[in-house]
């Protein structure tokens, strides 16, 4: 029995990588839901972005153009969500469901039309992928006991989008809690009538929030297809959008907590890939299905309010109708 083996550097390293798309999608959902727009279409937006980033990267050979295409694709779906749930005051949940299916269908349809490879893109090589960045002195520091390997393995050597995601956490916190825009955005999710009375456009603010959500989902999808893996395959998001949604509730709609929640769920994904380590550390086998289901079970427990209550933004899910 060696509990410390559970925190093997290789496991922690893949935790960071697997947590990145979750973190980006979670922050995306945070912006949208803080502004009062529920978004269960995170999954679809990520999938759409993953395909278009991989496809454009494969066609042009430039991963940066791929990233832009991914963001644009995700924002297009955000636009539909905004149109349905803000402009036409439709049901936000139904709109999210539609967006998930739209992405699941269209990606395979377009992939088959463009590449004829059974709904996938060609494998990305060279400039078509985000390469790991080696931070300065990583190799030199490796020999320093304890801190050296952590710096060289865990902190250094990820693609740039991982660092973007990590920086997005303080960025989101600052924007939401330290700027006038953030105050208004949070207010529009709690009490839109008050914001309206103050002469600020509810519709405008909500569209901006949904737009930011689109950008972050776009980066998340692009990271999946061009950083974590080398190309798009059918349904490659594999429920990550829903895990991000779970993490958002787990974090009670707060940015720093979102980081810890997604790292926890990322860790569960990483350890599920290494059953040998679990057995070595705990002395018995843990069913891999249990590890798969754990993020969802934890979320239900949190939602049930047995371990601290998760209270969503008050105006979430309700379209705003001006009084006349």
């Amino acid at each position, binding site marked *: 029995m060696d509990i410390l083996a559970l925190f093997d550097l290789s496991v922690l390293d893949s935790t960071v990588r697997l947590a990145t798309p979750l973190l980006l999608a979670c922050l995306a959902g945070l912006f949208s839901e803080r502004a009062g727009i529920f978004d269960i279409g995170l999954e679809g937006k990520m999938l759409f972005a993953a395909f278009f980033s991989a496809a454009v990267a494969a066609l042009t050979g430039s991963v940066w153009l791929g990233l832009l295409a991914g963001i644009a694709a995700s924002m297009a779906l955000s636009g539909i969500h905004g149109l349905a749930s803000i402009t*036409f005051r439709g049901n*936000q949940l139904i709109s999210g*469901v539609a967006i998930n299916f739209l992405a699941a269908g269209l990606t*395979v*349809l377009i992939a088959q*039309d463009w590449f004829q490879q059974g709904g996938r893109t060609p494998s990305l090589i060279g400039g078509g992928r985000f390469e790991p960045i080696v931070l300065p002195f990583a190799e030199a520091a490796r020999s320093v006991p304890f801190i050296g390997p952590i710096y060289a393995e865990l902190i250094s050597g990820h693609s740039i989008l991982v660092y973007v995601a990590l920086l997005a956490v303080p960025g989101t916190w600052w924007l939401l809690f330290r700027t006038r825009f953030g105050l208004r955005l949070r207010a529009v999710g709690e009490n839109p009538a008050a914001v309206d009375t103050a002469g600020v456009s509810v519709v405008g603010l909500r569209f901006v929030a949904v737009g930011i959500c689109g950008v972050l989902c776009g980066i998340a999808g692009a990271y999946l297809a061009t950083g974590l893996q080398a190309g798009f395959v059918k349904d490659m998001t594999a429920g990550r959008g*829903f895990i991000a949604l*779970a993490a958002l*509730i787990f974090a009670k709609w707060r940015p720093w907590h979102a980081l810890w929640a997604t790292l926890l769920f990322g860790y569960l994904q990483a350890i599920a890939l290494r059953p040998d380590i679990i057995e070595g550390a705990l002395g018995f086998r843990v069913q891999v299905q249990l590890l798969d289901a754990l993020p969802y*079970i934890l979320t239900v427990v949190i939602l049930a309010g047995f371990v601290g209550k998760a209270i969503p933004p008050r105006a979430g899910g309700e379209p705003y109708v001006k009084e006349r």
Partner: protein
Amino acid sequence: MDVMPKWAEVILVPLISLILAAILSALVILAIGEDPVAAVNLMVTGALGSTYGWGYTLYYATNFMFTGLAVSVAFHAGLFNIGGEGQAMLGGLGVALVLLFIPWPHWTVALLAATLGAAVFGALWAAIPAYLQAKRGSHIVITTIMFNFIAAAVLNYMLVNQLRPQGAMDPATARFPETVHLPNLHQILAPIGIDFSRAAPANVSLLIAIIACVLVWLLIWRTPLGLEIRSYGKSGRAAKYAGIGAVRITMVAMLISGALAGMMAINNVMGEAERLVLNAVEGAGFIGIAVALMGRSHPFGVFLAAILFGFLYQGGAELALWTSIPRELIVVIQALVILFTGALDNMVRMPLERMFLAARVARAPKPERKQAAE
């Protein structure tokens, strides 16, 4: 205020939404370099041109009737049950346990028992999110989504670790005994002189689905419970003043909803596969959402919408077989239907309402306005 006459509400709005979805789907087919007219022709001959095609169309439609009714009943109570997928998976587990571990003398008793098993398992899987919504205020949409994933893990565990026969490679149960084989439409229709395809999977559970449609109609519009469910769905607060318990209605509506979703398993697990496999549900739980939206949560509407989606499913399979259009086209059409009949409902409704209002104003004399002018 009801601006529109009832026929416009019931027929015109869904029809326009459907036409919009169809136009966009045709554009998608054009964009990937295929001919939409030829595609529709192929779908119609493939799905409706033979009893074999009809057999598949009706088989899929049976699934969608159950899941569509499930979503509808929850909608009437103002609840969005997105967990039909998980409830149908658990229903399959119920059917498999009932059929594998009890020796049944005849398929009729087996069908009754399997229906009960499927309904109980589906209802139980819906009970936890329902309880959490009713008692602890956890949002039912999120919990039912989470329960879909947990159901997939449970099913995976049961098939891989518990129910898989010794030495078998694929995660599936053993085949059900021959005695519980359900008669298909060929066997049912042969005595009355109709030669229905032998190979098609549509079976006697289609009749149970139709009975379920009738029973749900009776429940919602002809019983006190149905009135309570509808009142609660229209306005929870008004229902509370009328003495209708929120906890009870939430629980009852979700239990019925889960039971209906679970009952789908008598068609796909008992009727078609005759064993439980991992991906038995194949997204039918989600299609229930589209079916319920299109059918305006009315059992007859659900019946028609289920047949339409059955046609789309079988037609889509034919398209994938004969052209380079992948089956995912159906997923796109499904998404467009959900988008236009569900989320973008007001986009169709608002201009129509304005039109009817204008027509009414033009017809009616306007004495008040003249008085105001004086």
